[in-house]
């Protein structure tokens, strides 16, 4: 939560700077965010490759555990498709790209604003921050009525870090590993799914 607040502060101060309009033109150029995105993707890649604990965890897992991220991916897209009925202003492809952040708001919003538009990037930022916040607030209720996987399902990619404590508290210790595993898999998939939906979905 503290991390989220810090990032929101950076984003908000950026907005204020932008509104004030007292910026050297060179800062506004999209070239910067392009290069910064490349750096971010490289670093995110290193994080995945260097994380040996996670790789051991994935290797040690029963096949059954893959059902959890698979169910979350299918469920997220199915649910987002339903929500598209209430969002006539957005293309289904755009809604799916936003949903494909699975709560990983920093990376997904930046990729989307770079590949698609800043407006949709902000939708992704809001939507995925909401996913994290709603999860933090509702895990006890979700687990009570929808079983021990419900908190992980709601958390999506955040189930490996920000929402992990509350999930393992309410779903039980034995679900901590599933939660971690699920978050790792979804986190790895986010950049691929988002770019895929935006770029390949356009052609269909």
């Amino acid at each position, binding site marked *: 939560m503290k991390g989220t607040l810090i*990032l929101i502060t*950076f*984003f908000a*101060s*950026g*907005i*204020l700077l*932008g509104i004030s309009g007292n*910026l050297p033109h060179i*800062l*506004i150029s*999209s070239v910067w*965010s392009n290069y*910064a995105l*490349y750096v*971010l993707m*490289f*670093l*995110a*890649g*290193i*994080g*995945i*490759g*260097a*994380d*040996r604990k996670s790789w051991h965890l994935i290797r040690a897992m029963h096949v059954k555990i893959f059902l*959890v991220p698979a*169910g*979350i991916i*299918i*469920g997220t897209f199915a649910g987002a*498709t*339903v929500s598209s009925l209430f969002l006539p202003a957005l293309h289904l492809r755009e809604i799916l790209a*936003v*949903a494909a952040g*699975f709560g990983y708001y*920093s990376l997904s919003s*930046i990729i989307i*604003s770079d590949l698609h538009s*800043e407006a949709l*990037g902000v939708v*992704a*930022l*809001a*939507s*995925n921050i909401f*996913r994290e916040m*709603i999860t933090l607030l509702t895990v006890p209720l979700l687990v009570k009525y*929808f*079983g*021990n*996987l*419900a908190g*992980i399902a*709601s958390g*999506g990619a955040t189930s490996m870090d920000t929402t992990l404590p509350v999930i393992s508290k309410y779903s039980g210790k034995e679900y901590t590993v599933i939660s971690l595993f699920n978050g790792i898999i979804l986190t790895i998939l986010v*950049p*691929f799914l988002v*770019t895929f939906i935006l770029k390949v979905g356009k052609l269909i």
Partner: protein
Amino acid sequence: MVIILLIMLSGVIFGIVFGRYPLTLKINDKLLNVAICILLMLLGIAVGSNEKIIANLYSIGLQGFIISLGAIAGSVAFCYVIYKAFFQLK
């Protein structure tokens, strides 16, 4: 798109090679945080200087909220079925 994914893959390979040193992950986490802060600030600047987005910030937030509700409901529903079918009978 291909460039982005290739850059990320080269990062993964770099990480696999240098992951044997615990320091790699530590430094990388710090750099990643800094990169995310800078990028979100740049996104904020781009948003702030775009009058169209600022004028629609409320509806943009509402759209995000509706998408997140759908995504969460769908995920919970699918995982409920998976839970009942595969996880409960242990």
